[in-house]
């Protein structure tokens, strides 16, 4: 069982309190009717399936209830960071350089 840092509670808590919610930074198109069938297909179904750092969403469902974003390495199953919903996708090269 992993530990996950909730950016809203500012606490690191057991995974059991959280629920996975799919890949992050996939915004619902503002006007879906303007999209071609292919564009809409990509929005619905096409996902990164990253090997390594993966931007994904979690919800602190048995806690504060907030959805937030996380970067998790799918190889090591380790969280690199978490951040609030709506914040920009972090630049991992900057983060790595800082470490």
């Amino acid at each position, binding site marked *: *069982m992993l530990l996950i840092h909730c950016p*809203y*509670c*500012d*606490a690191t*808590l*057991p995974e*059991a*309190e959280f629920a996975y919610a799919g890949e992050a930074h996939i915004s619902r198109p503002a006007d879906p009717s303007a999209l071609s069938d292919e564009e809409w297909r990509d929005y619905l179904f096409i996902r990164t399936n990253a090997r390594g750092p993966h931007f994904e969403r979690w919800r602190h*469902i*048995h*806690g*504060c*209830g*907030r959805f937030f974003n996380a970067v998790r390495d799918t190889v090591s199953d380790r969280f690199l960071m978490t951040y609030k919903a709506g914040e920009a996708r972090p630049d991992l090269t900057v983060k790595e350089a800082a470490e």
Partner: protein
Amino acid sequence: MTTQRHDFDPTPFLVEELPWAPRFSLRVRPENRAALAGALGLELPTAVGQRSTAGGVEVLCLGPDEWTILAPDAAPLAAGSGAAYAQIPHSLVEISDREITLRLSGAQALTALTTGCPRDIDAMPVGQGARTLFDSATVILWRDDRQDFRMDVWRSFLPHVRALLDQVMVELKSGL
């Protein structure tokens, strides 16, 4: 050496079901929190887990825009909410019947909670609270003292939670 002695504990902890009391879920944008608190005459803590008590009204911050309020007299709260709504959009929903509150106290109350709560309950400061898990039921935990807790459990989950606590009671009484 093999231990063959054990000490029975007749009352490892106590479980009481607290009587019904008015309870509300309050939601408002964080930027409107202070204004609404002023309008309702409440203290709305800003950090998740923090509590306030004023004039017999208890408030627990469950999320960045969510508070649970225990107000013995519901009428002024409802009236204040209605009056403030147009200026400060928010939601105040009565949930008095949604949860039933158990009080767990006694020397092993904390131990009893560790049977079902994965988070570090001992690290929760006295006077705080949180929504968390007990077994697979979502609960709201209030720590009133080192070994004195309230646990709000959704009504339909209560039989399961109580049955688990009954098992834990028998186990802890055995002294092993």
